[in-house]
């Protein structure tokens, strides 16, 4: 287990004097951990070897997502609820020292008297909008709904074209069709070349694209498989678990789905099941999907057991990350440092991520409360925290 300190690590004067050239202070990685009972921030040193823990924030609150705004490097948004209370969004502009609640959290439109309307149970996913749209954010909720804020997360407006559209409501299904704690709108993606080009996915209801800033959306499910016996032409049967766009090639997306791992190269609209190339004993079922920040050929997955009753734990109790370095043609097992047996881990769809350093740091959190990382793109893994509550989401960011 890596060393975790309670105080920041400081450079000594002597170390500074012996530096040969003037260097800007390296940006430090912060790992944002959202759990069922609060949130924690793990601040790394320059080498990502020593981690200073900060937290808990919102102790006892359910935090589904905690995201740092990459446009200013200091604003945090947290999607919260508690066992008793309705959902909310909290915002910090001082790296988590203080938090302010949203004046108008995501909420569905009120329906006329006598009709049964939907109520947001929790906000599940937060995505900062395009770099040219400061203070704008997207949110995905459970039950599935899409929302946008243009004031830094203080007030949120629903996308009626999704949330109230009869066709989309049919594709979403009911709460009974969803994941155990509610169907999720997730993987809200903004094309870095075009703020009007968006994607989102629904845990029940497929992957969708908009080219007009969210006024209209179209499903993209061709090539995606569904559970045996069901019609893949029916959008509602498609269960994407996590979709990621490659920053170095925004025409390429990777997807971890209920039925395999896929790649999509635009302008094609047909997903290719690259998970067929995974070892048969392991399979290609899982929840998270992670892409390399600079190499669109490289992606990582965390396979889980999707046989019989869907244990959703590491196959055979032997956890491993798998990497492809050639767009999914071949996969390599990366488990150096992980337990060799009897480790029945579950990693949720938001609980695995990468930083932007070179070599890339990888991070994942388990539902048993362990936080793991690799400083070398998965070659060697270390545990940097144990005994946290059930981990729901892990994000890596760089503070300014």
């Amino acid at each position, binding site marked *: 287990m890596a060393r975790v300190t309670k105080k920041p690590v400081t450079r000594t004067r002597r170390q500074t004097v012996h530096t040969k050239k003037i260097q800007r202070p390296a940006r430090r990685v912060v790992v944002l951990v959202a759990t069922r009972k609060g949130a924690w921030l793990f601040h790394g040193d320059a080498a990502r070897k020593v981690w200073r823990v900060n937290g808990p924030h919102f102790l006892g609150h359910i935090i589904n997502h905690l995201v740092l705004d990459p446009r200013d490097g200091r604003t945090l948004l947290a999607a919260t609820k508690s066992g*008793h209370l309705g959902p909310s969004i909290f915002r910090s502009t001082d790296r988590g020292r203080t938090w302010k609640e949203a004046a108008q959290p995501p909420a569905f439109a009120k329906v006329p008297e006598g009709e049964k309307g939907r109520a947001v149970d929790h906000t599940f996913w937060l995505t900062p909008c395009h770099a040219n749209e400061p203070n704008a954010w997207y949110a995905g909720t459970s039950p599935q709904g899409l929302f946008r804020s243009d004031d830094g997360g203080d007030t949120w407006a629903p996308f009626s074209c999704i949330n109230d559209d009869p066709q989309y409501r049919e594709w979403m299904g009911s709460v009974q069709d969803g994941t155990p704690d509610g169907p999720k709108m997730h993987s809200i993606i903004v094309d870095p070349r075009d703020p009007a080009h968006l994607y989102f996915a629904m845990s029940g209801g497929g992957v969708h694209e908009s080219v007009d800033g969210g006024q209209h959306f179209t499903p993209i499910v061709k090539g995606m498989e569904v559970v045996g016996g069901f019609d893949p032409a029916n959008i509602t049967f498609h269960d994407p678990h996590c979709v990621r766009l490659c920053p170095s090639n925004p025409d390429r997306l990777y997807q971890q789905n209920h039925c395999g791992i896929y790649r999509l190269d635009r302008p094609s609209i047909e997903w290719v099941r690259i998970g067929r190339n995974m070892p048969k004993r392991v399979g290609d079922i899982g929840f998270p999907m992670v892409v390399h920040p600079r190499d669109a050929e490289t992606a990582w997955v965390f396979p889980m057991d999707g046989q019989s009753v869907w244990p959703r734990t590491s196959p055979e109790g032997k956890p491993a990350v798998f990497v492809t370095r050639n767009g999914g043609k071949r996969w390599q097992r990366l488990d150096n440092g992980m337990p060799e047996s009897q480790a029945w881990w579950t990693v949720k769809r938001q609980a695995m991520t990468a930083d932007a350093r070179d070599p890339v740091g990888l991070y994942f959190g388990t539902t048993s409360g362990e936080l793991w990382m690799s400083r070398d793109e998965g070659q060697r893994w270390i545990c940097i925290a144990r005994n946290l509550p059930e981990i729901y989401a892990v994000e890596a960011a760089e503070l300014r």
Partner: protein
Amino acid sequence: MKVMIPSPLISYTKTQEVKAAGATLAELLIDLDRQYPGLRFRVIDEQGQMRAHMRFFINREQVFNLAHPLRSNDTVYLVQALSGG
């Protein structure tokens, strides 16, 4: 009238006992939200329904109707009702 606040909501009111006005429970919650912005949405959803684990008592009687009338000498209790780990 007197309103007793459960611990999950004290981050809004800073105290367990507050004063609020209203001819009905619905109006009382609007007044509470005016005084303590954000409080109402944590206990009443966007469709005007009581959230699953919040309960409302007027004096010693549990009420389920937001239109329930109130008198100025009533005491209203907002109660959390949640079990499990």
